[in-house]
């Protein structure tokens, strides 16, 4: 499958047989330096209602939505959602997981807490973690947010971590500092296959797709 980062929490994931999934689409806005997605997708997942994560207007076609948390099977793909606390206590956000091409993908949404055992059990195995490394909590420093993301990734123990970070500050350097197995890509997309996933946890840092 191919994973392409479009900015913020939005990824375009294309399965081997061509199913397109968009996560957390954002709008066109003067404060968002990424290109809004206006093509079509088969499935759109939305972790919560904040406008930078739930903006679907302008997308072409007739996609199916998954917002969770109840599990659903959409176009043959099983989705499940685990409600969590949004960072800064700004409501709830859902961690959405699904399996594609034999790979379990998990999108952390706007996570603001370490995961409880119940949440971990509900999420299950994770191969690729799309991890929010920014916090909306005004009392958190960049380091706090990165530390939380690090703790959560240790809890979930995925094979690949793809950090999704804000553009205003370079959270990425904070997140990867001191970690082994970090690959910085020149581009914003990469291919993944079940048989070639790393055996040790690896951080794959995409280049931010500024417009």
């Amino acid at each position, binding site marked *: 499958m191919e994973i392409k980062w479009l900015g913020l929490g939005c990824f375009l994931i294309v399965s081997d047989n061509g199913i397109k999934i968009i996560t957390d689409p954002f709008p*066109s*806005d003067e404060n968002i330096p990424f290109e809004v997605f206006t093509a079509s997708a088969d499935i759109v997942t939305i972790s919560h*209602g904040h406008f930078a994560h739930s903006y679907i*207007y302008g*997308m072409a076609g*007739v996609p199916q939505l998954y917002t969770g948390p109840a599990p*659903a099977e959409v176009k043959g793909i099983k989705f499940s959602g685990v409600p969590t606390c949004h960072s800064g206590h700004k409501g709830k956000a859902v961690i959405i997981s699904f399996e594609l091409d034999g790979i379990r993908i998990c999108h952390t949404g706007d996570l603001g807490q370490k995961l409880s055992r119940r949440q971990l059990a509900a999420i299950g195995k994770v191969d690729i973690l799309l991890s929010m490394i920014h916090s909306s909590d005004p009392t958190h420093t960049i380091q706090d947010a990165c530390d939380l993301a690090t703790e959560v990734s240790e809890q979930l123990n995925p094979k690949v971590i793809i950090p999704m970070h804000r553009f205003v500050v370079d959270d990425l350097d904070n997140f990867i500092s001191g970690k082994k197995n970090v690959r910085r890509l020149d581009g914003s997309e990469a291919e993944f296959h079940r048989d070639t996933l790393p055996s040790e946890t690896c951080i794959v840092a995409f280049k931010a797709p500024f417009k």
Partner: protein
Amino acid sequence: MNLLKSRRRFVKQLLSLSAFGAASTLYIKKEPCSDMNSIGIVEGADAIGNPDYALSNLDDGVKVEYVGMSCFKITSSSGVRIITDPFLAEGNITYVQLQREPADVITVSCGHFAHCNVSTVGGSPYLYQTTEPAEIHGIKFRGVATRHPMICDVMSKTEPGKNIVACFKVDGINFCHLGALGHRLSDEQIKQIGTVDVLMIPVGGVSAMPVNVATEVCGQLNPRVVFPMHYKSARCPLPGWAAVDEFLAGKENVHRCDTNIGSSELVLKTSMFTPEMQIIVPNCVF
């Protein structure tokens, strides 16, 4: 909402509806639906996952529930659930927003947060916000391109001014949801919209057409039933907007379901249609 709660609520509504006189009991006689399979059974539906599917066995006709703003939940007799223009309860909007209400289709007219907050809808609904016709769960959808007032451009920079009028036929009844339509319709648009039995029309002005234009548009489309929506109310005290009374002034066959306790869930059947246009002001479901 769980099966027991919605069943209880349904029975309460049925009782309160029959308590009113003939004037408020809008029972449209149902077109005989031959066999369930021909209407488009919801994929994978069963009574536990979809209480409306179970309720549909008690009922024959299309259920219409008003959530607030321009958001309606329409349930076909076979249990297909359509939600129009889901909103985020923010600012002056104090209607209770949906809490991941499961649905099968969502229609969205424009990109403003009061119309496109799909995160409040659960299940795995199809999103219809296009002018390409589509058939979803056996129901044909058609979108007609129109415009909304530019003042509403807060969040639709992708397609500024664009408003999609959603037309769909459920159980033989032609629904038309105008979204945030900002103007009277052109001949071409009227032709594309086609026959309208039930019209959902914004009557608050400001970020939709002026109130007098709303009356004109009713004349242009000549529906049998009109549901005014998108107006100022106690739960939505938007400054400068018109209350629904302005649109209703001087009109006949008005049923004010919003001023009594019951009637938040209406059942429409085609036998209810009269040659005169009926206006129903729905009560909110929450």
